[in-house]
């Protein structure tokens, strides 16, 4: 392989990126050395197996990726704002939209989702950890390393430019030579393995680690949503892994799975990638549904309406989502009968989705609604998702899709559901559970600014794109000429859409500011129950101690913390005598990090087709696994005295603050 372009050259923006990467790296290294933080970083974070910390690391990484993906989006919108723009050259534009799509789905939405899984699920089910804490750390570091590998492609070697789904033959070595496409494959492959492991981990966690008194039908809906999403991961991600291996064989070893010229077939890739890709969109949206279920019930001060049909519809969605993938290529000529079947299956998905919306709305009925930041995002979600779902049903009408497919109408649809559903949902979750993890709330005023900027920006950006679809504008064009811009009417709408993108960008800046500001000035919460919550996570202090629950909670049905509080108020609550027992916990380990480092070496080697390096990396991976299997001293017990000490300190902190507010 020609590596004369190892460092990407020739574009001032890339040089800018080079410089800023170097500067940020130096700054971080300086900071850590000057304040002697290396040991702390290693002990407290890099080697941690605590699900709460892993959740926080996922969150940080995904916010970073949201920033990166957002910058990409704004660059693209800038390029399209006016006809005949020369801001980005074609190849650069193609690299950017490929990166944008890949990052947003795989390196922003997925880790954000895993952040919520990790931050919330064990606390909601009264568990002290996830089922496989070590594997959990491995998953995180695989995701992180995969994301980094994918990210450096911009400055080293060049990025993929065949789209986030990389249809062959365009993504085969004949049309996409060079390391870019390999970066895409290996970045996703490595992080994908981590995602699969997380899915397994949370299925087992939910099924096996619940506090003994919690039956499945007592589980909060967020936990249910995580379970259904994880089951979908279990089905979908192996397909992705295998497809990527097949593409690797095509590219690296001259295989012909997806090229016709050896008897392969590109249509096979399109089918495979959507057999993963369609469930994937539901994988990311189900947990958002879970968040909304918690948020709307909590802030309406009511039980969720129709719990049973909520659970049923989530399971239905995760099952039916496997029978819709062909709607992504109705126009590939599978035939009328196939199109009809998949059109109807797709529409069927809209039914349980619609039912959920009804149930949320009727949760508000006869409630007492307080409009807080998490609820605001729920309010924003309802209309957006109604419209997004409706345009989805429109797309599902196969012959009509012949007109929408690959047009800006499609772009508008999936952003409507992905931003309006997934991003709004995760943000609602972030605002909701932030005080649990960090012990303070995020500032309301800045949050409201961010919220409105996002809302307005969202509609200004995407509504015109529906119209652009009807005007015949196709996706992924890096430029359009004056005729199309003015005579066909594309230019004004594109310009407006760009304005909207900027508004959302400013909204994001407000959120970053909000977080930084609130670290210092945010409203502290020492009650552990910042929102007067209903579920178990609110029954313990914020932030929770390492072991979460000193004593495994005893639940009597759904919303048990809510009812316990009521009993406490009425004086009917019977305090159980406290008797601590030593708590069994996993020990920290550096192996997940080191192993992922070897994965990086392997991925980097295969990306540049330096087989020796790839093999060295893989050997390293095997050796670290080997080393792990000889570690016997992997757990420890927290003694009763220590638990007593911790609990007492936490209680005192709480008491002191109650005193303070009382005065």
């Amino acid at each position: 392989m020609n590596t004369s372009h190892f460092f990407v050259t020739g574009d001032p923006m890339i040089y800018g990126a080079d410089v800023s990467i170097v500067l940020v790296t130096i700054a971080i290294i300086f900071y850590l050395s000057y304040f002697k933080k290396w040991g702390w970083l290693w002990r407290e974070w890099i080697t941690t197996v605590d699900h709460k910390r892993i959740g926080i690391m996922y969150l940080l990484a995904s916010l970073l990726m949201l920033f990166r993906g957002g910058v990409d989006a704004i660059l693209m919108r800038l390029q399209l704002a006016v006809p005949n723009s020369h801001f980005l050259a074609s190849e650069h534009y193609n690299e950017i939209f490929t990166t944008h799509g890949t990052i947003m789905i795989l390196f922003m939405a997925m880790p954000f989702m895993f952040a919520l899984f990790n931050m919330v699920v064990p606390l909601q089910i009264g568990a002290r950890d996830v089922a496989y804490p070590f594997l959990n750390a491995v998953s995180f570091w695989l995701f992180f390393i995969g994301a980094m590998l994918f990210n450096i492609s911009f400055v080293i070697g060049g990025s993929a430019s065949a789209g986030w789904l990389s249809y062959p033959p365009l993504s085969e070595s004949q049309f996409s030579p060079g390391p870019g496409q390999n970066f895409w494959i290996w970045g996703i492959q490595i992080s994908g393995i981590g995602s699969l492991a997380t899915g397994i981990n949370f299925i087992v966690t939910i099924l096996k680690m619940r506090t003994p008194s919690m039956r499945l039908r007592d589980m909060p809906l967020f936990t249910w949503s995580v379970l259904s999403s994880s089951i979908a991961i279990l089905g979908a991600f192996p397909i992705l892994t295998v497809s990527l291996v097949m593409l690797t064989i095509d590219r690296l070893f001259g295989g012909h799975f997806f090229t016709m010229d050896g008897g392969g077939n590109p249509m096979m890739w399109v089918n495979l990638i959507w057999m993963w890709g369609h469930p994937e969109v539901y994988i990311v949206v189900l947990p958002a549904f879970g968040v909304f279920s918690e948020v709307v019930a909590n802030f309406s001060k009511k039980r969720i309406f129709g719990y049973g049909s909520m659970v049923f519809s989530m399971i239905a969605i995760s099952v039916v989502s496997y029978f819709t993938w062909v709607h992504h290529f109705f126009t590939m000529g599978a035939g009328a009968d196939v199109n009809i079947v998949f059109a109807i299956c797709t529409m069927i998905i809209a039914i349980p989705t619609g039912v959920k919306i009804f149930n949320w709305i009727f949760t508000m009925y006869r409630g007492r609604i307080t409009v807080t930041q998490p609820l605001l995002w729920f309010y924003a979600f309802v209309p957006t998702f109604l419209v997004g779902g409706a345009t989805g049903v429109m797309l599902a009408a196969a012959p009509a899709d012949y007109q929408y497919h690959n047009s800006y109408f499609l772009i508008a649809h999936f952003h409507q559901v992905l931003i309006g559903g997934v991003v709004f949902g995760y943000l609602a979750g972030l605002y909701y559970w932030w005080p649990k993890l960090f012990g303070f709330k995020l500032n309301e005023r800045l949050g409201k600014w961010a919220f409105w900027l996002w809302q307005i920006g969202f509609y200004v950006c995407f509504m015109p794109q529906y119209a652009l679809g009807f005007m015949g504008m196709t996706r992924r064009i890096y430029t359009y000429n004056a005729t199309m811009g003015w005579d066909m009417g594309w230019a004004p709408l594109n310009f407006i859409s760009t304005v909207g993108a900027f508004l959302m960008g400013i909204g994001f800046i407000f959120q970053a500011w909000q977080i930084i500001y609130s670290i210092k000035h945010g409203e502290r919460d020492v009650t552990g129950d910042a929102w007067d919550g209903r579920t178990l996570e609110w029954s313990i202090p914020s932030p929770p101690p390492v072991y979460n629950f000193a004593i495994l909670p005893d639940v009597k049905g759904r919303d048990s913390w809510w009812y316990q509080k009521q009993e406490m108020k009425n004086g009917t609550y019977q305090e159980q005598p406290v008797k601590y027992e030593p708590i069994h916990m996993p020990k920290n380990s550096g192996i997940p990090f080191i192993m992922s480092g070897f994965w990086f070496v392997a991925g980097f080697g295969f990306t540049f087709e330096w087989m020796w390096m790839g093999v060295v990396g893989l050997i390293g991976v095997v050796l670290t696994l080997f080393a792990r299997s000889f570690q016997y001293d992997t757990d420890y017990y927290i003694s009763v005295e220590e638990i007593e000490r911790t609990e007492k300190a936490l209680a005192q902190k709480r008491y002191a603050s109650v005193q303070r507010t009382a005065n």
Partner: protein
Amino acid sequence: MSKGIQFAKFSFLALLGMVLLSGCDNSKYIVLDPKGPVGQQELHLIIISVILCAIVIIPVLAIFVYFAIRYRDKQGNNAPYQPEWDDSKVLEVVWWGIPIVIIAVLGVFTAKTTLALTKPPVKDVKPVVVQVTSMDWKWMFTYPDKKVATVNYAEIPAGVPVQFILTSDAPMNSFWVPQLGGQEYTMPGMSMGLWLQADKTGTYFGSGANFTGKGFAHMQFKVKAVTQDEFNKWADGVKKNSPALTKAGYDKLAKPSLVKELSYSSYPNGLFESIVDKNGGKYYHHMSNMGDSKSMSDMSGMDMKKHDN
């Protein structure tokens, strides 16, 4: 803060107004302004789906807004509060039921239209065949009946069903002429059929819809629908005045490049079939969505059985 929100609301309305105004000229919405029976049927389905969705969305939105206001926790709000009310079989039956009915109705329309579009839009006129090849980054049209070829524009007779037969000599693309009807993929090694028809003469915008790399954005072309007479005259003119497309000429054309509109008085025999075979068609017999392709092969130069090995 409330001032900020006021301002935000105002600017939102202003922008919304702009969007609506700039959309006043509805001839620009070419998908909604079809000029032939295929686009027309698709538009009908679009309208039906919009209406059906609106039946659900609008009341739901109204209820949502009403509840959000009615049950807000503020001083003096004496709306009933029933924290334990979480179940109603009647309501649940209603909202499982309504979407099911709506989807059933839409499903029937969808199925009908899907089947209808596999057949020529009108039965009593003899169809024309136009073969379409997408390349990096241009479109080639070959006319088996007239034995002429064009690049980056197509000419068709109005009022006549056209069977476009699609393939690709490059990564897969998608052939889309919104005012005539929806798109269909062009794939290397395969040939696929798409029925379109223009009822009115005119020049229609067409483009490649599926991303194919660097020059993709420039893959736009015109489809000129003219009367049958003019069509014949045009073909004769091309036969007389344009150069021939040789095998070597084709190979050069197929290399990645951008070109303007071109016409050729002839092209190598079986060019389209050889493109399909060269790209892997030899391994497959792939002719889905061809509708009644049998009647096609009787009357056109394109014999689908060729790929049957």
